[in-house]
């Protein structure tokens, strides 16, 4: 009946299994895939006294078993993992698993604390929506500005909290993981953005639940306000629990920069260290553990959703929400102001020289040098302006690549389920770590890493549009006019969905720039002396006590970019969820 490719019945589970298998094979074959001659690393780490002659390197290669091809390397690793043996570290020559599990314990503690922060923030964000709902007023959820402020990238928030709370105010310890006080700042850095995101998702869903007819019926029947509020929350959770699970999985990626900034011996920092030193067995075990963790969180979310829905999950008897409230009339103010400020900052810097060290070291800001000079005496404003070309230019390339990949994979319909789910569960930083382990840090590597994970939302959007457009009467009639499946897809479905998906891709530009900057901040992206924003921030952070202006410029640019990203996407969500003309259920069948 449906000309859309892919039968949802079999395609989705098969595609899930294949995608999971592909990732496991990728992890298992990592040592063989690594283009950076790991034997040299191992030689330096283990036998510093032996010269790096071709014979010695070949001997190390044979020792590591790398000379037997990818299949053998994978088979060795997989059989070891199945027997509980994750191999020995190439650097320390000790078993990998105990260290990884210890680091996992630390990370889980941090994530637990961050989750508590996140749930508290999310609950706060929902209060106005619930109040409006109980009073029978329509609600748009939390304001875009408030949402944008809670949605700063973790690495920026971690750096900010470290500088302000730990260094300037001295209220909490800056580094380490030995006392309970060490948990507070990292948990805030990790939990605030997650809480902002969950709060936004949940309060939009709560606002939707309050427009359903049962609310009115319950109120008339004399149920208490608290009872109705709880029921609305229950109803809202069923819709967004999957997305909340994704946010929780995303904590694994966010934890990497937070652990790095606060020097916490967690899994993220272990992975980062393993990637830098090319200790691939540690990296394999860590990434596999993260994958299992992500799968467990996803399964738990699916279970919770089933419990929340009860019998309605089987019968499909769910109430229909009323039409949502569209974006307010002044929705454009926040993105327009942040965009204009960002543009002004960039343009001001573009006409200055970012590379020559003509100023005094850490020279304070003045009229001639508005943002001061960095530790090498370079103009910070110039570096921020030129960095925009690096960061945003790279983001543009990444978004274009993601658009093509997302369209191609999304057009396969239900077959895209597995790759999309697996990719959604992989934060850009984890992908960045894997790419760096294989090819070393570089701008191209960062772009590749962000591309590897950022196509998934575009593919999911494309797949949803394919299903929707294919159900329209004028598309369903095409096979009867002799039009083949491929021609329907290329000639009718694709041109219809293309403008929508391109618009979505453009909206993702600032967020992509932030992901690239995040990799730069961790040293996984562009290398000095490039003026990339994340790199500028990580260079400046060492001098923050003496010269706070070194981080101010890049931090302001990144904050503006994230406010722009979040406010654009919330306006878009409100616009897209607005009343859309549904295809008439006419046609055949």
């Amino acid at each position, binding site marked *: *009946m449906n000309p859309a490719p892919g039968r949802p019945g079999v395609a989705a589970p098969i595609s899930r299994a294949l995608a999971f298998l592909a990732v496991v094979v990728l992890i298992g074959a990592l040592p063989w895939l690594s283009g950076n001659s790991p034997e040299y690393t191992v030689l330096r780490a283990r036998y510093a006294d032996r010269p790096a002659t071709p014979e010695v390197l070949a001997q190390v290669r044979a020792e590591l078993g790398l000379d037997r091809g990818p299949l053998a390397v994978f088979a060795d690793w997989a059989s070891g993992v199945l027997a509980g043996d994750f191999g020995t570290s190439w650097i320390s020559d000790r078993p990998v698993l105990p260290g990884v599990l210890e680091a996992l314990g630390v990370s889980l503690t941090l994530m637990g604390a961050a989750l508590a922060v996140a749930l508290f923030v999310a609950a706060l964000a929902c209060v106005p929506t619930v109040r409006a709902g109980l009073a029978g007023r329509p609600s748009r959820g939390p304001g875009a500005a408030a949402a944008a402020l809670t949605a700063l990238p973790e690495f920026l928030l971690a750096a900010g909290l470290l500088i302000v709370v730990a260094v300037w105010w001295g209220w909490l310890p800056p580094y380490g993981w030995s006392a309970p006080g060490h948990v507070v700042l990292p948990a805030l850095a990790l939990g605030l953005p997650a809480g902002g995101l969950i709060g936004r998702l949940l309060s939009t869903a709560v606002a939707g639940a309050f427009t359903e007819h049962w609310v009115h019926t319950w109120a008339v029947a004399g149920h208490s306000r608290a009872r109705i509020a709880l029921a609305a929350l229950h109803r809202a959770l069923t819709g967004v629990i999957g997305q909340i699970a994704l946010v929780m999985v995303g904590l694994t990626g966010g934890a990497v920069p937070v652990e790095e900034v606060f020097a916490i011996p967690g899994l993220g920092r272990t992975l980062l260290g393993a990637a830098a030193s090319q200790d691939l067995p540690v990296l394999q075990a860590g990434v596999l553990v993260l994958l299992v963790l992500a799968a467990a969180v996803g399964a738990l979310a699916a279970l919770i959703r089933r419990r929340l829905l009860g019998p309605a999950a089987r019968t499909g008897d769910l109430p229909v929400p009323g039409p949502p409230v569209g974006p307010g009339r002044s929705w454009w103010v926040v993105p327009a102001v942040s965009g204009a400020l960002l543009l002004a900052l960039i343009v001001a810097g573009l006409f200055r020289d970012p590379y020559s060290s003509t100023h005094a070291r850490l020279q304070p800001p003045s009229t001639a040098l508005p943002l001061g000079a960095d530790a090498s005496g370079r103009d910070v404003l110039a570096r921020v302006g030129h960095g925009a070309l690096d960061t945003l230019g790279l983001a543009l390339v990444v978004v274009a690549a993601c658009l093509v990949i997302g369209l191609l994979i999304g057009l396969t319909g239900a077959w895209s389920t597995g790759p999309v789910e697996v990719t959604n569960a992989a934060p850009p930083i984890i992908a960045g770590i894997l790419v760096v382990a294989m090819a070393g840090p570089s701008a191209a590597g960062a772009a590749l890493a962000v591309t590897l994970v950022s196509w998934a939302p575009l593919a999911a959007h494309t797949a949803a549009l394919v299903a929707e457009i294919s159900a*329209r*009467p*004028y*598309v*369903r*009639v095409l*096979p*009867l*006019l*002799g*039009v*083949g499946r491929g*021609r329907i897809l290329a000639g*009718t479905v694709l*041109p*219809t969905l293309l403008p929508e998906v391109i618009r979505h891709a453009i909206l993702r530009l600032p967020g992509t720039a932030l992901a690239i900057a995040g990799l730069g901040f961790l040293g996984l992206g562009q290398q000095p002396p490039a003026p990339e924003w994340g790199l500028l921030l990580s260079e400046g952070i060492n001098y923050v006590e003496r010269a706070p202006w070194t981080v101010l410029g890049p931090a302001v640019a990144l904050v503006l970019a994230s406010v722009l990203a979040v406010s654009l996407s919330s306006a878009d969500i409100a616009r897209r969820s607005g009343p859309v003309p549904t*295809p*008439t259920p*006419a*046609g*055949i*069948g």
Partner: protein
Amino acid sequence: MTAVRGLDLEVREGESVGLVGPSGSGKSTVVSLLLGLEHPDRGEVRFDGAPLTGRQQIRRARQAVQYIPQDPASSLDPRRTVERQLREPLRRFRVPGDHGRLVREALEQVDLGTEHLGRRAHELSGGQAQRVAIARALVTRPRLLLADEAVSGLDLPLRNQVLDLLKEQHVGRGLGLLFISHDLTAVRFLCDRALVLDHGQVVEQGPTIRLLERPSHPVTQELVDAVPRLPA
């Protein structure tokens, strides 16, 4: 779930047959089976005596059996001109001859002029859009038209226009017609004989006049009772 069971239906060349039944009686499943969009679990659909299996045979059948959906206007692509939509099936079915002339003739058959060729769906009135959809079904010179609730959603003048048009194609050009509807007056206007479908089974069949005047099955009786009458 079984939607249709034990159905034996034959439409001969140039014949007009009505398939009536209440909602959910399996009419749409019959349409999907006849168009080769679904395949029966048991039994077979034959076209020109050959079973409707395999791409070639389905393709051949689709050119000869054209389809007018419920709400034909919504079956027009909003982005394409009338001309392009009428040329599409000619190209896909590789119909020989001058396609421009065939398109103009098809429009003529539904009383539309060439000034409509460059228009898109939103530039047509409701009635014009219905006609274009019917012209698209006629353009490949089919031998059988399958009209699935083609007049159910229409207002009365438009309904009558479409019925007149279908009658003209059937009587004037000898086009076969399988008219699926729950509207018995429309069936009486168009069809010589009819089948009554309920819960996927034929409960009564015969000449349309007899079914209407002396219904023997309760479902047929209900359908007859549902026909609005002017007070005497």
